[in-house]
């Protein structure tokens, strides 16, 4: 059984009619209602933990950061992130937030599209059949590391493009408009812009904007970009993640903060968590369970290789969040 977490009052305040949504949630699972005022994340966490039991298969947060806040964690790395925004703590029974005890995902709301949340809940299928046409974009500087992750996707008809030479104006039509496929991005992102960037040396061309994304029905998106999964105060015009979901994507995996990775294999940090997620998802297990198992695999591989989890490993485990129905099983069409 799913455990839904939301705040009807906050949804209403954002112009989203909470009545049909709450009715849907109570009909389809257990519900934890956050208080009318924005809750302290720790208070909310205790409320969720009190409801967790063997009957709960997964937890789904309904709403964006303004409805149910991400949980702020101390940033283990030295960079400009004051904290690392995470959903892990909401499903961690103890105060160690690297490996959650339950699968969790979030179905975000969009301030500019009050109907999106209801549309997603009503139309979401538990089984998504994707073709084996996989499309990816990588910063040229990370082409070797990206090839390693990309090798984990289905083998037929896959295309990994590098930026530069790829720039926004030369985006292939099948990226802009193509349904039921995987999408992989290993590019630069920033909290100050709705663009993602490639890189070669000191050249950072814009390679994707939210405006470039049109029809993405059933698409499964995996992004390593810094802030690729950060939605707060962003809407259709400014967030690539939200635009993918608004355009019909089933699932989106991305980072809420600055993410890290090597230039060359073996995969580490963002490369490793995304690669492990792809491998687990392809075993046809529910998406949020796939992410939980990917985190465990990340820990096992990293500690087997280096004997410890360092600061950027820890940040990688905190910062990747999954958007979409946690029960989605991705099947590959041959």
């Amino acid at each position: 059984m799913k455990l839904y977490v939301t705040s009807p009052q906050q949804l209403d305040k954002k112009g989203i009619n909470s009545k049909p949504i709450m009715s849907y949630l109570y009909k389809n699972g257990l519900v934890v209602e956050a208080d009318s005022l924005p809750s302290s994340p720790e208070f909310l966490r205790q409320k969720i933990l009190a409801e967790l039991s063997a009957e709960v298969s997964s937890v789904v947060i309904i709403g964006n950061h303004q409805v149910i806040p991400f949980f702020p964690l101390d940033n283990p790395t030295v960079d400009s992130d004051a904290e690392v925004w995470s959903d892990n703590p909401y499903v961690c029974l103890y105060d160690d937030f690297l490996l959650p005890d339950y699968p969790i995902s979030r179905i975000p709301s969009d301030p500019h599209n009050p109907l999106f949340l209801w549309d997603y809940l009503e139309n979401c299928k538990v089984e998504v059949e994707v073709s084996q046409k996989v499309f990816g974009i990588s910063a040229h500087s990370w082409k070797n590391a990206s090839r390693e992750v990309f090798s984990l996707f289905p083998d037929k008809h896959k295309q990994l493009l590098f930026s530069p030479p790829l720039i926004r104006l030369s985006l292939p039509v099948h990226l802009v408009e193509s349904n039921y496929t995987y999408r992989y991005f290993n590019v630069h992102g920033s909290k100050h812009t709705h663009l993602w960037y490639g890189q070669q040396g000191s050249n950072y061309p814009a390679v994707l904007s939210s405006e470039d994304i049109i029809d993405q029905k059933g698409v499964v998106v995996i992004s390593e970009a810094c802030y690729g999964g950060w939605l707060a105060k962003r809407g259709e015009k400014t967030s690539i993640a939200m635009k993918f979901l608004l355009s019909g994507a089933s699932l989106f995996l991305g980072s809420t903060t600055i993410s890290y990775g090597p230039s060359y294999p073996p995969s580490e940090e963002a490369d490793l968590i995304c690669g492990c997620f792809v491998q687990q998802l392809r075993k046809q297990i529910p998406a949020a369970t796939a992410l939980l198992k990917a985190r465990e695999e990340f820990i096992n591989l990293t500690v087997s290789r280096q004997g410890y989890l360092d600061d950027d490993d820890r940040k990688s485990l905190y910062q990747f969040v999954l958007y979409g129905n946690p029960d989605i099983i991705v099947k590959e069409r041959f």
Partner: protein
Amino acid sequence: MSDEEIIKKIKNIHPQFQDITPKIKEVVYKPDKHLAGKSKIYRDKAKPRRIKIFTFIKKIRLNQQIEFEKILRVSVDSQGNIIKTVFSK
């Protein structure tokens, strides 16, 4: 090997950070008891380790409005060997 020698070595490999003074952090990673309870592999393989991390942060201006940080993080063992190099995305 001194910090200065390590910084020189890193800058030789990554000349784009030549003009950056890194932040240096020394950490001792100890096995985590909660993770040890959840993963047998972690329990068997996790060992205490002392590491020094050199973080180079370079501001990149994409256009007049947008600036982001390009970060290089280099982990070094107690003998001064570079054991890991990662970049921000």
